[in-house]
């Protein structure tokens, strides 16, 4: 029980998948033009991640997936993406028109698959860096991670969206225009977040 707060804090900030493990960076660098779109895409990505990681936990614990684990995980992600897409279509039809080209690509977000693979193969220990090990396969940590990690992803989406907005009007050296300057920014973000290491 006392592990809930560390997992939550850890997944949102300290072990934020997109900002410290550098998964899903490619999508952060491209998706969304303005704030509303970025928020919509970020929330959808977080929902896809939450749904797929819970589904993945049950699939992994009910069946012995073996060599087929990747295929099963990818299919689960596709199903959750389709679910979230239909949800967005129902709740915000006018926003759906603007983001419908991008939303299917969320199923190719590596942060989502990374979470599934890690929980599937190593349980939750990777998020706590060895502080607990015995209850790693229980449901509660999985549920907490399924809330925390998507929030971290949403955080990363918003952060990168804001940075891209500011970079578009900044005077960047010619050679660094586009992706390189964003990577420099990402490196600084990693350094900043690494200052939080060890508070758990």
């Amino acid at each position, binding site marked *: 029980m006392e592990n809930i707060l560390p997992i939550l804090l850890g997944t949102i900030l300290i072990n934020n998948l997109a900002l410290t493990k550098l998964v899903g960076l*490619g999508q952060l660098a491209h998706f969304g033009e303005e704030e509303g779109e970025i928020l919509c895409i970020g929330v959808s990505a977080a929902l896809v991640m939450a749904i797929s990681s819970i589904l993945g936990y049950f699939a992994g614990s009910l069946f012995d997936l073996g*060599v087929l684990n*990747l*295929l099963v995980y*990818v299919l689960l*992600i*596709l199903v959750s993406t389709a679910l979230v897409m239909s949800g967005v279509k129902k709740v915000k039809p006018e926003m759906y028109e603007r983001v419908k080209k991008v939303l299917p690509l969320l*199923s190719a977000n590596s942060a989502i698959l990374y979470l599934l693979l890690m929980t599937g193969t190593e349980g939750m220990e990777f998020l706590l860096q060895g502080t607990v090990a015995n209850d790693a396969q229980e449901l509660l940590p999985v549920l907490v991670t399924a809330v925390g990690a998507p929030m971290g992803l949403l955080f990363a989406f918003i952060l990168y969206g804001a940075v891209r907005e500011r970079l578009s009007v900044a005077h960047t050296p010619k050679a660094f225009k586009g992706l390189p300057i964003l990577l420099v920014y990402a490196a600084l973000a*990693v350094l900043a977040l690494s200052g939080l290491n060890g508070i758990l």
Partner: protein
Amino acid sequence: MNKLNNIKIGFFRNNPVLSLALGLTTALAVTGSVTTALGMGLLILLLVIVAGVLGGLLHKVTPSEMMIPVGLVLSAFLAKLGELLALAYMPTVASEVGIFIPLMAVNSLILFAAGTLTEKTSFGESMKNALLAGCAYVVALLAIAFLRELAVTGGIALLNPLSGVELFSFNLIPQQFTLSLFAGSAGALLMTAFVGGLFQAIGKSGNDKGGK
């Protein structure tokens, strides 16, 4: 990602990883040493070629709105294939890269090669693009890995990724002047940014002189 449609992939201008962010996750993870970069680069090149062929075949029978799901399943299959191949033939590289080999299932370079990120084109055209992107990807990986390993260890020790036998090694920078920053994830990002800037600068200056 819609802007990928009419883009000319090149080694310096529009390098797939350094300016289009295709397969960036894998690139950041495997460039810790030249050996892993070489091994994984060749593996990805192989998978890109297979993905190009299979994706081209699937294109004919798949409606365009279903291309992303189909492409993802295809690349998951290829990533599993790659993982098993890596575990069998280059175990040292596989254990070093770890989780990032199965993560190739969502590597956008493979998806790009399978034709899921672009509009329908002819088979030859997409195959050419895929091959070009794959080669440019390997070159970028090697450049990043070379500089990172040089900065971290002060020299290069290239092993044969298949057998683990040392091919050559040299030492350039004395031990007390090495930068361990570049071993971590922040260093990976910084070095990728620097190499990206370098490549773009080379590409731009070539353009100004009326070259490619």
